[in-house]
């Protein structure tokens, strides 16, 4: 069982994608294929979680793929607590997004096939244990997203899709050079071995000099930073989100952005600890810029979805802040924040999708007083916004509390306390833009700028997707130890940096 459970996890959504494409004659059944396959994937994920929590081992599976004298690439997959959390997030969001979007009328068989294909790529990234494999899956996620945006997006979808593709692809190429550098340095003239194991061993053996680490860390970090995205490499994100369909946005912000921060922890911190210390100050500065820049940009936005997109930049900056502390607490809570943000941002993008679809516009100045017409929608939106601004009792608070605590610890150690103000300012700004947005969309005078006569509240399936997410946001907020235990107790690799 152990040896094939992870490949199985990849295989099922792949079968789903193929079946869904094959449904082109019976388009209306494609959604069932997607829902069933993603439900099975989630079930297997949950089984893994259950099984792993009762054991002191991790699943790992490796078989040679290309094995010549000069190059060694293996199909190596494995999971630890961080991977499992991301895999859980992925399989959960794919299922909920399939349920949420099940009323999709436009070419549903292709639509759901793309979502399933994306799941393959995402799961692959989070379980790959070979750099080459990691890179392949990384690129695999790009293509379905490109087609989702350009095929099902808004009016400027082609511009947004191409910008998304080229921007992130260029970053991937820089990352690829970094990966080659790692493998070449690690193999020291022998066969080029791309496995995590070999590179890690080389790192432990001290084969990476400080100067090498400085440069290669920079290249890999750039590749991951564009994905997260960090200011100033973020401009593809708001455009992509504004144009993407809801399902695309949820997966993009919910799990795809996390590939960037996952990569930094998994690759940069683990095998280039020296580089991490050299880049620490720069990372902190970048994190703070992202947090505040993102929050301020939110205040100025008129499109609700664009505001939520910028809030992702701010919250992913929080993740980097946690990572940049290079301490056990910082990294743990950064991972927790990745999970928390994944759940919360899914609610936010679904809410944006509903308001865009039901009211016909997402322009904040055109909306107003929606709570009267759409009370259930208003409740979900408020819940999502409050969760995102870090309301205690919900999952986002725990993550932010831990990250800022680790930042405080770092500052107290170097005896310079004032930069904590930046982190605190973001708490105020975040509350500010969310409450202001709620005031202008949900409350006050019922808008007369758009026709509200046919506006209806959330549909049953939308309600189920949102309800499950909100319940999980509360659950992990009340019992954060559920996720923290996973992060702490299941290490496949101890981060070299700590």
């Amino acid at each position, binding site marked *: 069982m152990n040896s094939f459970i992870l490949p199985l996890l990849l295989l099922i959504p792949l079968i789903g994608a193929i079946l869904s494409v094959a449904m082109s004659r019976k388009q209306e059944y494609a959604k069932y294929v997607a829902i069933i396959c993603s439900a099975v994937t989630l079930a297997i994920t949950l089984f893994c979680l259950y099984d792993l929590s009762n054991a002191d081992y991790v699943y790992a599976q490796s078989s040679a793929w290309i094995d010549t004298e000069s190059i060694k690439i293996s199909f190596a997959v494995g999971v630890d607590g961080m991977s499992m959390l991301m895999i859980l997030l992925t399989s959960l969001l794919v299922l909920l997004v399939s349920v949420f979007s099940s009323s999709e009328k436009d070419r549903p068989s292709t639509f759901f096939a793309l979502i399933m294909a994306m799941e393959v790529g995402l799961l692959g990234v989070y379980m790959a244990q070979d750099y080459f494999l990691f890179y392949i899956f990384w690129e695999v996620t790009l293509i379905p997203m490109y087609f989702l945006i350009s095929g099902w997006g808004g009016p400027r979808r082609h511009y947004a899709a191409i910008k998304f593709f080229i921007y992130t692809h260029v970053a991937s190429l820089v990352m690829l050079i970094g990966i080659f550098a790692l493998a070449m340095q690690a193999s020291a003239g022998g066969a080029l071995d791309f496995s995590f194991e070999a590179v890690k061993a080389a790192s432990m053996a001290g084969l*990476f000099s400080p100067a090498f680490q400085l440069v290669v860390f920079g290249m890999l970090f750039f590749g991951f930073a564009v994905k997260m995205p960090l200011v100033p490499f973020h401009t593809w994100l708001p455009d992509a989100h504004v144009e993407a369909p809801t399902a695309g946005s949820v997966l993009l912000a919910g799990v795809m952005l996390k590939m960037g921060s996952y990569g930094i922890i998994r690759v940069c911190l683990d095998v280039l600890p020296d580089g991490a210390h050299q880049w620490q100050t720069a990372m902190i500065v970048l994190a703070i810029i992202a947090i505040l820049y993102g929050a301020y940009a939110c205040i100025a936005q008129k499109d609700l979805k664009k505001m939520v997109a910028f809030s992702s930049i701010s919250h992913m900056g929080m993740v980097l802040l946690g990572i940049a502390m290079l301490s056990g607490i910082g990294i743990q809570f950064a991972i927790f924040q990745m999970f928390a943000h994944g759940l919360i941002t899914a609610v936010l993008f679904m809410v944006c999708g509903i308001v865009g679809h039901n009211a016909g516009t997402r322009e904040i100045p055109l909306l107003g007083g929606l709570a009267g017409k759409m009370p259930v929608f208003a409740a979900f939106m408020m819940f999502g916004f409050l969760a995102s601004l870090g309301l*205690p009792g919900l999952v986002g608070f725990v993550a932010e509390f831990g990250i800022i605590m680790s930042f405080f610890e770092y500052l107290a150690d170097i005896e310079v306390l004032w930069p904590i103000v930046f982190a605190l300012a973001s708490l105020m700004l975040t509350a500010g833009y969310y409450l202001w947005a709620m005031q202008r969309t949900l409350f006050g*005078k019922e808008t007369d700028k758009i026709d509200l006569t046919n506006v209806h509240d959330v549909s049953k399936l939308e309600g189920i997707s949102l309800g499950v997410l909100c319940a999980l946001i509360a659950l992990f907020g009340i019992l954060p130890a559920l996720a923290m235990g996973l992060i702490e107790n299941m290490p496949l690799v101890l981060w070299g940096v700590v």
Partner: protein
Amino acid sequence: MIMDYAWLIPLIPLLGFVAVGFFGKKLPEGGGYIAIGTAIIAFVISALVSYEYLTGDLFAASQPYVADIQWLAFGKYEINFGIYIDSLTCVMMLFSSFISTLIFVYSIGYMHGEGQRKRRYYAEIALFLSGMLGLILASNYLEMFIFWEIMGVCSYLLIGFWSFKHPEGDEASIKAASAAKKAFLVTRLGDVCFMTGLFVLLWSFGNLDFTTLFDPAEIAGADGTMILIGSLLLFGGVIGKSAQFPLQDWLPDAMAGPTTVSALIHAATMVKAGVYLVARSYPLFIQNADVMLLVAIIGGVTAFVAASMAMNNMNIKRVLAYSTISQLGYMIMALGAGGYLIAMEGEVEASIGYTAGVFHMVNHAFFKALLFMCAGSVIHAVGTEDMRKMGGLSKKMKITSATMLIGSLSIAGFPLLSGFWSKDLILEAAMEPSILGLPAGTIFLFLFALAAITAFMTAFYMFRMWFMTFKGQPKEASEHCHGESPRSMTVPLIILSIFAACSGFLIFLGLNNIITFSVLDHGSGVEYLVGGFGHTAGHIFESIFTNVWTYVSMALALFGILLAYLMYCKGSIDPARFNSNGESKIYKFLTARYFFPQLYDQIALKLGYGVARGVDYIDKNLVDGTVNGISNAVVGGSGSMRKMQSGYVRDYAAFIIVGVIVLVAILYVIVSWGGA
């Protein structure tokens, strides 16, 4: 042991929230009876727990009852979740759950006409009660903070209860939405301070349990500077939540919510959370005399500033809101003065300031809840909050006018009513440091003067309100009045008025021994004790009536009532003389609330929106402009690139080879450099 089940106290209203929230639509009164039921159960358990604690060995030894479990552990830190019961907890949970029960009952009548929205209302107030009781019972600061914020959200939701489809039209909706946002953001500023205080304390102590943080040995072992910073930051939270100067301005706007909400959240319970936090954190705050001095100064200034704003306001609820801020200032000042004394003197048995502050908090909860509910009864009957449109209502609303008179007399400090006793103890506490000749004696003398003037102003504005509402000629709104409110509203008024009149006597009936804070010095080390070691009833009685300032404050209060009578009932002094027919600068300054709303708006506009516009401009033009510029340069250059697409495989191969060579060269440089 019923104490082992004390965790049920916040849990039951929480279950009520869930039940009403999900099934309220189908229940009578939108689930109102469920909410009342949970409040009653919470009160009964609170009473049983308090009885067991106060009659038990733990209280006799001035020791708290603590039970907790681990919630989250990370690094070298540990956060627990549990309950912490001492005599302060008992007092707080008793009056909070009791008043909540009465206000919930009153709500049945007051909110009867709200239709479908009643479900939302009862769900939110049940959640609020859960938050308040959770805060009171919390065993550590983080747990307290979580409930603190849950209350904040309930306050936000309930202030904005009519933020859409307001019965009085769209303008009122817009105002309610804006007031709710303002309340949340202004208190959020305090909350962020509070949270930062948690980081400081967690870093210093390794956990946030009261048992650790209030242990003199642990405090002695921690970094003194960090305790100073931590205390100041916690007090920042108090300034936000208890509407202290300079963050007081959200509370008057919060009156946009239903009057029951104003009575419950913005008078009797939630705003007391800040006062409770100061009383609870005494062991930390007394480590630095300057912290306590600051607490006292903020309290004194708040008491004065808010009372002055109430002097010329025409809105019945706003007068009460300013009055609440002012009275909260009194409590904070008393706690600060008492703490300052301990910090300077070292050993103090039963600090007067502590007793006065907490005692006033209890009394104020009764009379201010009563006053708000009376105001609600009036508003319910006449349909306006403007006192200029009322008048002569005492004939039509006998119960309301009589109970409101009791409340007004009580808050004004009329002899023997509840407000009299606690206010007198507060004035005494404020005076004490200067009598003892402590370094900040002059400052405390000044604070005492402010407090005495505030006592006069309080009596004046309360009776100005009462006379304008119930006496004189009936104005337009009074004509619509159909008489007294329903019984579900008047019965709570009568019950509360009994407490508002008599709760002061509790200080002679055991409360003197329950709300105390003492520092005992054993030579080997100090000990902080909550409860026990109180002054005897005789001693308190004697110290009140042998103090000359008691008679001064009594005279000031009576003079205030008399002046209000002459101006607003008898009419022998024309109020217009004092404001030059509205042209007076002071009058305008007070009406403009010391220009605080403008100050807040300007800060939000400049630091928030202004910077945001700048960032947005940079984002669109500079950052994204660069990206588009690069892409244009590449696409523009593609014309020349196209010439190279000659179609010959040979050429392509050449390009690929060049590309590979460049790539390999980069890698070679990196690897050889790194390997060296």
